[in-house]
């Protein structure tokens, strides 16, 4: 993974793991990688790996079965909430950039409606 050098590593990895949940690469009840495996996968140290799971657990995205491992939450609404939360973040950044360019909300909505998806 490519990291942004100024942003905490654990936050960037959590974001990536949440994306995997939304995309269905990590499903409810799935076993997550061990700390050691997560460290290798993301090139982080194992202290950071432990922190990532601590944070995600406190937010309810995963849970730990002692001696067995960490699992993706089976909470019904969890994935919809993550999706909403991440969409809000993307939108917030987008609006911020557009306002910087001098566009008002109405202009932006008009532009979005008029926007043609690029053809592959």
């Amino acid at each position, binding site marked *: 993974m490519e990291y942004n050098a100024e942003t905490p590593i654990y936050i960037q990895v959590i974001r990536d793991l949440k994306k995997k949940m939304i995309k269905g690469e990590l499903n409810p009840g799935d076993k997550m990688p061990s700390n050691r495996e997560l460290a290798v996968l993301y*090139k982080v140290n*194992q*202290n950071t790996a432990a922190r990532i799971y601590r944070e995600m657990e406190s937010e309810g995205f995963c849970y730990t079965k002692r001696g067995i491992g960490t699992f993706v939450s089976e909470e019904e609404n969890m994935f919809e909430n993550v999706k909403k939360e991440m969409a809000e973040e993307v939108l917030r950044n987008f609006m911020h950039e557009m306002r910087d360019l001098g566009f008002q909300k109405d202009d932006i909505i008009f532009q979005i409606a008029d926007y043609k998806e690029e053809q592959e």
Partner: protein
Amino acid sequence: MLECRGLSKTYGAKKALKDLNLNLETGKIYGLLGENGSGKTTWMKMVAGLIKPTQGEIHYMGRPLGYKDKEEIAYMATEPFFYDWMKAADVGRYYQDFFGDFDMDRYRELLGKMGLEESMKAREMSSGMHAKLKIAATLARKAKLCLLDEPLNGIDYKAREEVVSIIVEEADEKNTFVISTHLLEEIESFVDVAVFVKNGELIRTADLEKERIMNGRSVRDIYMEIM
């Protein structure tokens, strides 16, 4: 686990290390950062017991560093240290003779993980393969303290990735790693604490994740500011 107090090393008129104070904790990865000739290798060789300090003390696990501690401290030199005629298998046997804690099964496993075979000759290896051979031999010892001098220098991107993978896999809550490098970007995602040295002096230590959280600063930002 390791404490350096007022450590100095003088070669004739040249001061290689000046009054260095540093504490290392178990369970962390340290990045020793500085230009060539800044004293990184001198410090590592001292902790490995290969050279004696001119002044100062090194304490390991609460007592003065002694000959016996070599068994728990692994040092990987930056220059190649195998004979040309050696095959990877010979390197394993050579290490087994020297180090009581060397684990041959682990060595074979590490070689396999990085795509090396026991029948390969050191002489015929690329620099990347050579770097992987060195790291496999060093980490097949179950050392408490691993000192890796420029493990990523002069090797291709893929070999670097493989060496980093092995390091983050092996570095856990029970051991301590010190990695010297001038390749800041290669180590910033997994180093806990950066130790900046310049002209034989320790300029600063920085908890990298804390710096990113509190100040939004990268290791490069800190480097540019203080070095």
